[in-house]
């Protein structure tokens, strides 16, 4: 395993499969009455959030606590970009306090990379989302969710070879899309991006995926469709004419969902904007994995933290739960 987790692109296939397998073990722990492992007892992890994200922070915090780590939450809302030195200052403070790992969320693309490579701090750095760059643990939890749904719970050691995954919406501003394209390709899946041309980055033709403007055509052969969040503030920036038009062309409603293969699932990184990008009918259907994604997020983050901090031994003894207590 690598020392830091900055980008999904840094993961080899074997690294990624190891994380997914470890996540499976962590998920089984979470099904037990006592959901706690002693793996990181005595270790201190700092959640360094320069950008608000309650969901991601809580997910990491839950993961850290289930591994018995000591947790420091540090919110430095909005202070960094206006004053350049604060990331470095904060890093050095954490270093002096002897933290064992830093989970960082930042509005500036590249901030976690800089933190990991600038020599400001020695501890492993885990990227919890940076600007419009990467959100690798999100990609891992998505991949885990897909593997469970599309391959099965006994998919240990397997990847997503041959699975057809479609990402729909604001690719341009989405770190989730970037991370997913990288990771899903590494795991052998065929990825297609669907968006209006204004919401696709220049250079997307060099990405390891296909691009389409036509959602209906792609839906027919999608094993999973992941809807990306469209930020309301984009509405006035001429990325698309109106909410209604966006919804007609790129929104997912029940009728559209019905075009998918029967086993096909609908994913969303949350929070969902019901109505415009996804209708309530779709969001509440049992094909929609949003709630599972949240639960799997904790397990994935446990796996990542465990592997980065704990070592290469299996997290849980190899004695598989034979009693099917988790079924």
């Amino acid at each position, binding site marked *: 395993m690598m020392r830091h987790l900055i980008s999904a*692109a840094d993961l080899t296939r074997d690294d990624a499969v190891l994380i997914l397998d470890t996540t499976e073990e962590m998920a089984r722990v979470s099904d037990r009455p006592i959901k706690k492992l002693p793996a990181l007892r005595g270790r201190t992890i700092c959640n360094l959030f320069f950008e608000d994200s309650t969901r991601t922070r809580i997910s990491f915090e839950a993961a850290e606590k289930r591994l018995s780590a000591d947790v420091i939450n540090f919110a430095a809302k909005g202070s*960094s*970009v*206006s*004053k*350049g*030195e604060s*990331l*470095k200052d904060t890093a050095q403070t954490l270093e002096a306090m002897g933290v064992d790992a830093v989970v960082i969320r*930042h*509005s*500036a*693309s*590249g*901030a976690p*990379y*800089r*933190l990991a*490579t*600038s020599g400001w701090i020695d501890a492993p750095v885990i990227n919890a989302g*940076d*600007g*419009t*760059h*990467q959100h690798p643990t999100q990609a891992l939890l998505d991949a885990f969710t897909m593997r469970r749904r599309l391959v099965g719970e006994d998919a240990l050691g397997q990847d997503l070879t041959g699975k057809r995954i479609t990402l729909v919406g604001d690719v341009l501003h989405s*770190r989730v899309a*970037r991370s997913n394209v990288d990771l899903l390709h590494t795991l052998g899946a065929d990825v297609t991006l669907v968006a209006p041309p204004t919401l696709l*980055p*220049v*250079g*997307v033709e*060099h*990405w390891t995926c296909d691009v389409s403007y036509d959602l209906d055509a792609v839906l027919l052969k999608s094993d999973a469709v992941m809807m990306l969040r469209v930020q309301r503030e984009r509405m006035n920036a001429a990325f698309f004419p109106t909410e209604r038009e966006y919804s007609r062309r790129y929104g997912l409603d029940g009728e559209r969902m019905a075009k998918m293969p029967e086993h096909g699932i609908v994913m969303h990184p949350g929070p969902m904007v019901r109505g415009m990008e996804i209708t309530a009918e779709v969001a509440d259907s049992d094909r929609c994995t949003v709630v599972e994604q949240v639960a799997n997020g904790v397990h994935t983050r446990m796996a990542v933290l465990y592997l980065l901090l704990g070592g290469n031994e299996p997290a849980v003894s190899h004695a598989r739960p034979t009693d099917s207590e988790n079924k």
Partner: protein
Amino acid sequence: MSTILIRGAKVLGGDVQDVLIDGETIAAVGTGLDAGDATVVDAEGQILLPGLVDLHTHLREPGREDSETVLTGTRAAARGGYTSVFAMANTFPVADTAGVVEQVWRLGRESGYCDVQPIGAVTVGLEGKQLAELGAMHDSAAGVTVFSDDGKCVHDAVIMRRALEYVKAFGGVVAQHAQEPRLTEGAQMNEGVVSAELGLGGWPAVAEESIIARDVLLAEHVGSRVHICHLSTAGSVEIVRWAKSRGIDVTAEVTPHHLLLTDELVRSYNPVYKVNPPLRTEKDVMALREALADGTIDIVATDHAPHPHEDKDCEWAAAAMGMVGLETALSVVQHTMVETGLLDWAGVADRMAHKPAEIGRAQGHGRPVSAGEPANLTLVDPAYRGEVNPAGFASRSRNTPYEGRELPGRVTHTFLRGRATLVDGKLA
């Protein structure tokens, strides 16, 4: 008056000659000149060039003396072989009045290392709204001839037109920082494959090219001359080439870093590579080199942009844009242009001394190396090879992208009006 004999230098890289300096002037150029009681500089194997002229330098004084002062900046210039630099107007306060430009000009004279020719702002406070007192700046002791809102683009077409027209009255030139503001909102690096991957706001080539296209047409329309700062794209080259073929009075500059570095380097997220205009692609770099060689791009200008360590030692988004350039410019040009066979040393003298002096009307600079001319000269050891070590910079700032990179050539001596400002690589 002191006399100096530069013995055995290749003048402009060509014939080996002796050059005798008497007082402020070149007294004689020839072979086997008698040293008499002159101080002899043994220049065997070295290239003698006219003192370099930089049409685009940021000296930061007044206002950001923690980055650079006129004194430290001119010392850096002397180390780089420059005898004249044009100081950009984006200081605090902005150089948009006779008072500020005269202050900068006087500080340059007092430094004694390099002539400083202030550039005046085109608009008040660089705000792009109201023309600054261009005539008063021209009539001041500083005698301003070049006007620029550099750092910002004069994006209002009417203001640009008026500025181009107005400076015709006294032979001035408007130097445009071509950057369409709406197309570069939130831009942090070249828009392309790398920006898409890194999730950094893209700066499309067309944001530069569209302004250049507009401005050459405006210059044609009003019959004025326009200078385009720091071209960075292949498309910009094409537009300037077209404009020149059409007879439009346009000149253009390229920075050393745009002749060497590409946006691939941004993958490091190291803000030392954050610069405006941004580093582009390999294809752009090659087009810029060719254009400099064939004269489409007239000059090399450093865009020397000093920033203190803390403004760069942070995350990419928060970092200041710009890199220092005075002390490495000639080495980069040797590396990218001379050693690739694109330009000989006479060509270097043309692009880094003669032409910039001509565009900026810098009196006494960029002159031929011949008897009777002002003794503004630079000696270069082209055989030198060494790693760039910013610890040795005279600039107050160290934001160089070349730290640890091996570059050829070293300026050994610089003479400003017959006085050595640099001797054996050390400031005098």
